[in-house]
């Protein structure tokens, strides 16, 4: 259908423009954001101000603003061109300062096709091409805003479609020697996962939406709460004693209300982000995530660039047995999107929404053959727990010292005897700190784990943001072993597997030296062996 026609319209490398509809979409956005409010303001000012000329002034200013915005959009449209040659993708852009960026196609790792809500009525989409190297200063992405959906689809397929030599060669390398032929576990094709309605429920506490929702509400509350509270206190000033209980109750009700409202907003954001979620394996060996209710998003990751997958079991949702799956690959580096553009709520590496743990295990296994997140991981030695408990002890000690200093100052400063409640309060506070610190230490220790599968190395860590990374064994391109003085005394080490994705290294913290080295030696045969000794 559209596929053939679009392929035919782009036979030879030629410079293409963005869609001219981009300008019209820009007009709509500018008029809605500035034009209409400007007119409303003009009417209000015209009525309220002594002379209607003031209203005219507002109209003029608005027209100027919208007009210059449209002019800029037209210039941007006329001065932006891209082309896809057999070797490179090139982009010329910039209204005032021109830039010509050229990107070798073999470096392209991911293509992100997004249709923001304002572009959808025009059949437009934004295409973001991710690479493993930086293209512009500080960014490893090229963005086209906007092209038609058909062009976006064409770009996605053409840029990731590479059935040339390196692909075959690497695919052959992917099979570690001595493993059973891949016939039994050929990667599953087509649809690997799709959204189920109950999963939206996890959205109320999902990391991205909930954090955004509560931070916005918190900010709103902080900036406005002062007025009603002072007003209430002023009203109740005469009867302070009688009012103290209702005020406390009001505060509690308010907090609960904020909690519920935050959950609701987070839920809505989750639905917006993940509506119609589908994870598919495309015939051109890419993994494709499609999702979105109002703003559509489609992220394609080249499979042979996939270094591993990550199972994120973050805290509030871990208690409800939920987890999500993310890709470990280069070209998806920005964990939180590009400054709001392209949707910062869901990281580009996300392969699934929050879903039941078993389902997440299944999706991970489907996305990266050989992965088994249900496997039991080896626990780190007790010495790792000891280190964490010592740190917890240090925190408690610091709390005690701080409190003691505060009380000493209070005793010196005030002539009267301190009320007994202060001592009780201090004791309770220290106890709370101690319980929290020890719980954190134990949880941190229990979060540690490592393991070795047929094709992947498993590393797990974290307390609140606990995640298990399954890293392809053939994607490990080096090892690091770091030891602090404390670790040397306890026989521990921090093992790092370096790879060409994200921060470049994944750590097993406080593993026992023998266990860590054995893991590294077995995971990547012959790399570490010449440097190992036994005693």
């Amino acid at each position, binding site marked *: 259908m559209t596929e053939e026609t679009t392929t035919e319209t782009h036979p030879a490398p030629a410079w293409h423009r963005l869609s001219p509809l981009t300008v019209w979409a820009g007009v709509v956005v500018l008029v809605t954001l500035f034009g209409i409010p400007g007119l409303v303001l003009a009417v209000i000012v015209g009525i309220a101000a002594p002379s209607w000329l003031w209203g005219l002034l507002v109209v003029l200013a608005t027209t100027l603003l919208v007009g210059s915005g449209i002019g800029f959009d037209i210039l941007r449209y006329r001065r932006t061109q891209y082309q896809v040659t057999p070797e490179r993708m090139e982009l010329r852009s910039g209204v005032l300062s021109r830039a010509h960026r050229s990107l070798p196609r073999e470096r392209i790792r991911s293509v992100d096709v997004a249709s923001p809500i304002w572009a959808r009525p025009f059949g437009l989409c934004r295409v973001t091409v991710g690479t493993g190297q930086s293209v512009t200063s500080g960014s490893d992405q090229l963005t086209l805003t906007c092209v038609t959906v058909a062009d976006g689809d064409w770009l996605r397929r053409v840029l990731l479609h590479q059935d040339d030599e390196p692909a075959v060669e690497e695919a052959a390398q992917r099979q570690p020697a001595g493993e059973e032929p891949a016939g039994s576990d050929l990667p599953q094709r087509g649809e690997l996962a799709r959204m189920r309605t109950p999963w939206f429920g996890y959205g109320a506490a999902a990391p991205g939406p909930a954090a955004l929702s509560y931070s916005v509400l918190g900010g709103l509350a902080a900036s406005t709460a002062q007025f009603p509270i002072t007003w209430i206190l002023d009203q109740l000033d005469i009867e302070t004693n009688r009012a103290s209980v209702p005020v406390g109750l009001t505060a509690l009700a308010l907090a609960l209300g904020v909690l519920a409202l935050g959950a609701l907003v987070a839920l809505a954001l989750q639905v917006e982000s993940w509506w119609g979620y589908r994870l598919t394996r495309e015939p051109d060996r890419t993994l494709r995530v499609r999702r979105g209710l109002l703003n559509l998003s489609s992220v394609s990751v080249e499979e042979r660039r996939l270094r591993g997958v990550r199972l994120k079991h973050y805290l509030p949702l871990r208690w409800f047995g939920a987890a999500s799956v993310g890709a470990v690959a280069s070209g998806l580096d920005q964990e939180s999107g590009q400054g709001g553009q392209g949707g910062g709520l869901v990281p580009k590496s996300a392969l699934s929404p929050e879903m039941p743990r078993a389902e997440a295990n299944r999706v991970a296994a489907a996305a990266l053959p050989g992965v088994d997140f249900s496997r039991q991981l080896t626990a780190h030695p007790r010495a790792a727990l000891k280190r964490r408990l010592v740190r917890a002890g240090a925190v408690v000690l610091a709390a005690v010292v701080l409190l003691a200093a505060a009380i000493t100052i209070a005793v010196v400063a005030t002539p009267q005897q301190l009320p007994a409640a202060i001592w009780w309060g201090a004791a309770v506070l220290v106890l709370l700190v101690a319980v929290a610190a020890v719980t954190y230490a134990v949880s941190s220790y229990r979060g540690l784990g490592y393991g070795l599968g047929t094709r992947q190395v498993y590393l797990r860590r974290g307390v609140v943001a606990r995640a298990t990374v399954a890293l392809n064994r053939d994607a490990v391109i*080096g*090892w690091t072993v770091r030891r602090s003085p404390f670790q040397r005394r306890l026989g521990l080490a921090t093992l790092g597997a370096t790879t060409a994705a994200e*921060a*470049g290294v994944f750590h097993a913290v406080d593993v*026992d*030296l023998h266990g860590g080295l054995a893991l590294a030696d077995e995971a990547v045969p012959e790399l570490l062996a010449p440097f190992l*000794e*036994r005693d």
Partner: protein
Amino acid sequence: MSAAPTTPPRLRLRPPRHRVERRAISYWTVRAALVAVPVVLLPLVPTIVLTTLFDVAALNWLWALVAAVAIVALGVVVVMPQWRFRVHRWEVTDDAVYTLAGWLWQEWRVAPMSRIQTVDTQRGPVQRAFRLSTVTVTTASAAGALRIDGLDAERAAEVAEQLTDATQAVPGDAT
């Protein structure tokens, strides 16, 4: 620690084969002093100024602070270079580059020859005074660079050349 006595022999990393140049001790000393002197001067100068202006007992505390900073700084300048020299080692085999660096915190790094992307040698002004070089070996990993600090300049050039030749012979870098 956690293992039962019946377990098979326990694994350890053997140190890489080559030490760095003895001159590196002087280089590290100078480098540490370049940091330590300003760090000590920062509290020292105001303390001297204040002491000449006022005669307050509280200033003794400032002097104690200066002394503490100075002792730590002197300790680092004296101990760190020796310690580093005893730790720092490197080795290049046909298949891999292997380094050990650090003093309090020590780090072993291994990168296979087949995954090396670039080999650089750097010489700062202080290093040049001691005829020393640093060889940096990078892989496709953003965090996996190996540094051999304190090599003789000529030796460093040889090592870099050897590594460049070896890596060109092996295709593919896993990007």
